[in-house]
């Protein structure tokens, strides 16, 4: 075992990509819940700009998980079904839901930052490894770097919106 960031085999890579899928599914599911479950008085406040941001975030996560799922399948593993994670989010949403409108944006910011951090660490871990994976490592890194860049743009987008509304 290495204490540093490394990925030692296909199985471990597939497992980490599965975690990426779950993170995206959590983002997607929570974004839908935010839109649907805010108290009625705050639903009205949820203006078009924020609705669009959450809807786009959900769409982007769906796209990311599909791209990760392709990599996972190439590693002979299975992605985690969205319905399963949506059910878990649903079950715990009451305890973890943002209390108000500002909380929704903050939660979305955390989602984007967390995803960015995850892909950044995963890319570094793969680059630190001298493992020969059964899939094209360059292609995996390229996909992860593209997704990371989109998460970074997402962080900027939410931050800008929060600053404008402050």
């Amino acid at each position, binding site marked *: 075992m290495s204490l540093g960031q490394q990925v030692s085999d296909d199985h471990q890579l597939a497992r980490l990509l599965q975690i990426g899928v779950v993170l995206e599914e959590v983002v997607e599911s929570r974004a839908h819940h935010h839109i649907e479950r805010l108290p009625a008085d705050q639903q009205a406040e949820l203006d078009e700009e924020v609705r669009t941001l959450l809807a786009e975030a959900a769409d982007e996560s769906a796209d990311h998980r599909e791209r990760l799922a392709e990599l996972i399948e190439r590693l002979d593993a299975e992605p985690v079904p969205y319905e399963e994670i949506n059910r878990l989010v649903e079950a715990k949403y009451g305890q973890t839901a943002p209390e108000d409108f500002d909380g929704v944006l903050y939660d979305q910011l955390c989602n984007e930052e*967390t995803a960015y951090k995850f892909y950044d660490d995963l890319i570094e871990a793969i680059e630190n490894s001298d493992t020969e994976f059964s899939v094209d490592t360059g292609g995996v890194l390229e996909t992860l770097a593209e997704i990371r860049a989109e998460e970074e743009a997402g962080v900027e987008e939410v931050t800008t919106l929060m600053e404008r509304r402050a």
Partner: protein
Amino acid sequence: MNTADQYLKAIYLAQSIEDGPAATGTLADMLEVSPASVNEMIGKLEERGLVDHEKYKGASLTDDGIVRAEEALQTYCIIERFLANVLEVENFRDEARAIQSVIDDTVAERLDTIIDRRAECPDCFDAETDACAFLEVPEEAPDPAD
């Protein structure tokens, strides 16, 4: 979880098992590194005020070290619970150890939104079994020979 946090967690668990300072050899076994690597990192953690080290006895966490170690253990518990209960990984202990260096505490916090974890975490972590005492683990497949 970075290397320092993995050491702090190991010292915390070793102190719990040994009911006293964590010996270098115990830490080397737990972390699967050389005793020389352990001594080097203990020195760094001591400089940062997270560990007290007494020659021939071992390492003990300071109050600040305990806080950091408990946070690291919570992150680890989330990873184990996520693997065992969401992905239904039978070998969740080994896999958690293998991937913990790539899972940051902010990532674990997100995963925490879909798992059940006790309020007393990480006090319920059992150092001997390397898992939460309340963790319901996936059932092993029945042996066809039975």
